[in-house]
């Protein structure tokens, strides 16, 4: 909106104000993370130190970080690849009832994870997939309804005239897809990848039950080391660990944002 400068200035200030309010609850997180004597209260720490962070990275945190990365990036990539392969035909070929089918699939995901996880677990066990790879496949599978529907919507908005034009100029199917459709849907694909990534990054239950050895746990499981027995929570550890745990996801976001929100970068249609 390039209306006059004052409106944008006001908007900017309003947005800045909103942003400050939005992150104010994080004060608790930081105050406790840097407080070696933290008790979970919202208070100015009497002592400041990095002890909690040291505790958070000790132990298996490094290994867990790698596991988290593997599972999250693996799931996101597999989801997007499988999703694109199916979403393009779904978008372009007039298969009857495809919308209803996709929406029903998405609705089915409302059934409780408990019911789905158990047969899933048994199947994975029989297939020798009780490992990271199994977790990736399982998460991709569970995400697929959302992935497909989202990608199909984005492909739908790519004007078919562009593809026609390219075909007339002698492009093959593969070229049409890779040179026209995918770049135009870049934002959508990036969003779907990011969504799958963060979903998998935060996934606790599947890795917990699939893991057969100590070393297979991702950071989402490691977070719970903060919870002792009888509800004694080590808040210092919890908050410091959360910061370390959320940081890579934020980092991935920064890497991707150029793709997810390109401003007015959409390619125009010529004629």
């Amino acid at each position, binding site marked *: 909106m390039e209306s006059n400068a004052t409106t944008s200035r006001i908007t900017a200030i309003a947005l800045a104000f909103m942003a400050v309010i*939005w992150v*104010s*609850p994080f004060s608790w*997180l930081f105050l406790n993370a840097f407080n070696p004597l933290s008790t979970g209260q919202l208070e100015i720490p009497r002592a400041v130190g990095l002890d909690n962070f040291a505790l958070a990275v000790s132990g298996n945190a490094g290994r867990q970080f790698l596991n988290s990365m593997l599972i999250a990036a693996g799931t996101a990539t597999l989801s997007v690849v499988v999703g694109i*392969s199916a979403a393009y035909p*779904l978008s372009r070929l007039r298969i009857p009832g495809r919308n209803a089918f996709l929406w029903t699939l998405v609705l*089915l995901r409302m059934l409780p994870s408990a*019911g789905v996880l158990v047969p899933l677990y048994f199947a994975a066990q029989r297939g020798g997939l009780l490992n990271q790879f199994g977790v990736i496949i399982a998460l991709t599978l569970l995400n697929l309804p959302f992935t497909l529907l989202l990608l199909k919507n984005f492909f739908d908005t790519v004007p078919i005239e562009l593809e026609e034009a390219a075909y007339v100029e002698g492009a093959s199917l593969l070229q049409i897809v890779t040179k026209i459709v995918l770049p135009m849907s870049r934002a959508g694909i990036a969003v779907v990848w990011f969504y799958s990534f963060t979903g998998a990054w935060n996934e606790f239950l599947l890795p917990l039950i699939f893991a057969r050895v100590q070393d297979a746990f991702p950071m989402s499981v490691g977070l719970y080391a903060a919870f002792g027995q009888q509800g004694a929570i080590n808040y210092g550890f919890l908050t410091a660990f*959360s910061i370390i745990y959320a940081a890579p996801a934020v980092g991935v976001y920064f890497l991707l944002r150029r793709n997810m929100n390109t401003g007015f970068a959409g390619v125009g249609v010529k004629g």
Partner: protein
Amino acid sequence: MKNQANPWLTSNLLVLGLAMLPAALLIGALLYFTAWAFAFSFTDLALVGKKSVDWSWVGLQNFERLFTRRGFLESLWTTVVFVFFSAIVGQSVLGFLLAALLRGSQSTIRSVVEVCIMLGWLLPDIVAAFLWSATTSQTGLINQLFVIPFGLPPINFINEYALPIVTIANIWKGTAWSYLLFSAALDSVSREVVEAAKVDGATPFQRIWMVQLPIIRPHIATNMLFITIWTFTYFPLIYAMTGGGPGTATQTLAVFLYNQSFSRGNLGFGSAISVAMLVIVGLLSLIYLRMLREPK
């Protein structure tokens, strides 16, 4: 299957079919697993104990219980209120507004706002619950900064205004998704169309309302479906924050489901609740689907 005259499609039907195969296989597996969840609602399956090995089919008994057992209808109402305000009104409207507003802004303010809302989304649910409790409790941020300095007695917000607080927390947590989706969706609106509208003298508001919104209608409908489903079944944040309390003030269907399935060990009944939820959201989605039927 009529494909008009799109020769690059018709001549490659086999390839396209094969491309769909991996997804088809995974979908098949998903359907298989989901069928079990559906089947459980007709049994008296339990988590542990005798009924976990010795279960039997009980027909529609679980569904009858939905209406006779205390709690289902109240939870349903609480959930509807929660979903309406936090998801439909909160997350998607706010997400869209931010997406529209930030599109033309300079990168600094945009980066700042984006990171802020992203942080909410990326924080693990359990930590977010503690964070919100620390903000709205009797000794929390709001009280410390705004209530006590004015000489007023501290208000236990999370206890006395449980549902509104939980709603706000959910908006805080989930808006980033709607924002991301709408940003990407607005991206796909072709520049020419918007320029043409501008040339025609449309104000920014008119440009959004009459040009961009209709074009991204499928995205809006899809997003409504997604966030309705997610919020209907969303459990961790609410349970951790208030346990469904005080009393049953924040007992949404997801919390009710958890109490029935896990503290009770009643997986059969729990599945029936989920099936009921599915039917309800299914009906809602018919409304959303109407939005998809755009006059072309």
